[in-house]
């Protein structure tokens, strides 16, 4: 009896598996003769439709600008209108990839496997070099005429996205990274504006700490983003904007580590190991007075901050280090997003890809994107009266800056960037001296 039950069970499992497999496989099985005959007899109208569909060029565009991203709405509108304008000839198909780390991983795998997406974006850290060297990217040089070039900020296209004389990437989104501070909290301790030097800033931090406030946010989890930005500001202020070209042996890296270690005396107790949400949370809840991030964060002051926070937020260039090689007002920044495209065999498709990229970089469209998201771009859009207040200040300050230097993550090799959060944790916990911190980075570099 038991045997019969077992047999029945086994058979039903087998049958279910069989049905499942055949159903799934059926979807990709070749067409039968009958199906082929019935297709051949289909009306001419259908054939014509198919022919038309064949002519339509499909562009695959995996993007992070979807979901809850601040650029998602405008990008979606732009793609819809582009597809409508080019109906029957070009169709941009979006692949939604909101998770940035997953996006980076996937595009890298695609390129390595020889199947680069038609259009995608990359930042200025690590992957870009792999993409350039892969030989799988489209060269935009023949398409960069004066008209198109003229829409970008002066000199940008000459130095960004160029590899061995080829324009393999179009610089698109810009990251400038000022100090963001809560003017209300600074006023509480007697400051009307942000201090100009690090000495003055630490004096202010003492007062903020005494007032039971978190002077500045830090983090060492994930990629240690906000702390990496602080370290970048300090290292360029001490060693000058060209400090990275001299490598980690430059004493500026150790000196900056000493300042960085001190910064951790003026931060929240949960900074070591914290991810990006922690420093953001402290600033958005008016528990911390100083924060460092880019223009994309502007929207969050209104959306996620406590009531009235947005009105209290001001920005300033980071302080300068007395006796350092940097200058007052110096900024850090980098290319946040390059537009890149896969090398195409089909000339018509190549032109379609360029057409879409030109559409995305059209100044009117970029202005719309910038206004909606708060992000800054390498395309000239100008500052108008309706430009958002903080964004306007960023544009003005970065334009007036004596230099806009790369940040650490963009300037250093990927191995060093990967090691940075662990080394910083060790420095913050006092397990490593500033000298040992730099040694850890050097060891990672030489691996």
């Amino acid at each position, binding site marked *: 009896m038991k045997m019969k039950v077992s047999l029945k*069970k*086994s058979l039903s499992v087998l049958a279910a598996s069989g049905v*499942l497999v055949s159903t799934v496989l059926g979807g990709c099985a070749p067409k039968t003769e009958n199906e082929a005959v019935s297709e051949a007899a289909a009306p001419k109208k259908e054939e014509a439709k198919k022919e038309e569909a064949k002519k339509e060029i499909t562009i695959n565009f995996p993007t992070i600008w979807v979901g*809850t991203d601040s650029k998602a709405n405008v990008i979606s509108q732009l793609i819809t209108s582009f597809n409508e304008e080019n109906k029957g000839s070009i169709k941009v198909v979006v692949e939604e990839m909101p*998770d940035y780390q997953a996006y980076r991983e996937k595009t890298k795998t695609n390129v390595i496997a020889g199947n680069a997406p038609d259009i995608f974006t990359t930042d200025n850290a690590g992957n870009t070099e792999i993409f350039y060297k892969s030989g799988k990217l489209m060269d935009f040089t023949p398409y960069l005429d004066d008209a198109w070039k003229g829409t970008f900020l002066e000199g940008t296209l000459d130095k960004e996205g160029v590899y061995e004389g080829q324009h393999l990437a179009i610089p698109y989104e810009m990251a400038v990274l000022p100090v963001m501070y809560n003017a209300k909290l600074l006023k509480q301790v007697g400051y009307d504006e942000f201090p100009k030097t690090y000495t003055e800033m630490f004096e202010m931090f003492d007062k903020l700490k005494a007032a039971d406030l978190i002077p500045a946010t830090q983090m060492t989890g994930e990629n240690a983003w906000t702390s990496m930005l602080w370290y970048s500001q300090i290292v360029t202020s001490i060693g000058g904007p060209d400090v990275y070209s001299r490598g980690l042996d430059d004493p500026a890296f150790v000196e900056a580590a000493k300042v960085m270690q001190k910064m951790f005396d003026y931060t929240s107790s949960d900074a070591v190991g914290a991810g990006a949400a922690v420093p953001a949370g402290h600033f958005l809840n008016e528990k911390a007075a100083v924060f460092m991030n880019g223009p994309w964060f502007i929207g969050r002051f209104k959306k996620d901050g406590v009531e009235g926070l947005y009105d209290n937020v001001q920005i300033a260039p980071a302080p300068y280090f007395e006796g350092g090689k940097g200058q007052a007002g110096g900024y850090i920044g980098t290319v946040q997003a390059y537009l890149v495209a896969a090398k195409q065999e089909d000339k018509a498709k190549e032109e379609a890809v360029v057409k879409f990229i030109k559409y995305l970089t059209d100044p009117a469209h970029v202005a719309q994107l910038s206004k909606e998201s708060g992000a800054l771009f390498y395309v000239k859009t100008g500052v108008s009266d309706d430009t958002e207040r903080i964004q306007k200040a960023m544009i003005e300050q970065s334009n007036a800056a004596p230099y806009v230097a790369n940040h650490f993550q963009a300037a250093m090799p990927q191995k060093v960037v990967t090691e940075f959060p662990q080394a910083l944790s060790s420095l913050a916990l006092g397990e490593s001296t500033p000298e040992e911190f730099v040694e850890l980075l050097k060891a990672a570099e030489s691996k």
Partner: protein
Amino acid sequence: MAAIDIKLPNEKKTSVETNKHLSVILNVLKWIVLMFFAIYAIFPILWLLISSFKTNAELMSEPFGLPAVWQFGNYLNALKASNLGILFANSVFISIAATCINIMLAGMISYCIARFTFKGKEIIFVMFSAGILVPLNALMVPYFTIVNKLGLYDKHIGLIIVYTAIGIPVSTFIVRGFMNGIPREVEEAAIIDGCGFFKRFFMIILPLSKTGLVTAATFQFLTCWNEFVYSMLLTSSTKVRTIQLGIRYFTNQFSTDFVSMYAAIIVSIIPSVICYMLFQEQIISGLTSGAVKG
């Protein structure tokens, strides 16, 4: 009946009382330890559940407080914004299909390895088992290339095949252990009764390995359900993607909608919990049966 008053000598009385006290103390200690681990295990899920009803601002300002107003809308947002319903259905379909195929294959492989003697048997088993040690991320490029070349990119079957394959080492390892434990005499008796190869496999060995098969199937199902990397790599549209991608829908480059993400996570763990509740007897007996073997 009159009660008999047994008088214990004083020394013995003290020793019984001491034992009583010791037993109470040990009992209390036992409960403290048990409660500690229970809270340790339950607290994160409870925190996640409560957090999924907060606003993002509340979560950041008071991560351990209760929500002022319970935000049931987070669940609606999670379901609507990321098409969680479709992704959920895809996950169910892909996980069940990959588990069924995986267990069938693992059963067949294990049967041959466990019940037959042939040259290279151990090498074959080591080859299968070695797969457990290979990090999945290392196989991203080859899997992507194979799936793409076969034209299975962004198709359910592509993911099903990959999930079936990546689970084979663990499933074979588990099922083979159970099949090894079935007495040879049972199979020999079946042979005498005229059972052929397939009959023995389907009617004798498979039913007797039920516990092992269910254990392996549970692991395989959970692997498929929680898998993210290949789902992200081998699909591009909502019609094929799985729920793990839906959870990540709320994380973007610079910010995360934590509360909607937590709501999506709560939705996503429901099948795992149901799966465990349904098969908990088999899973526990499967996990512990090896522990008492000599």
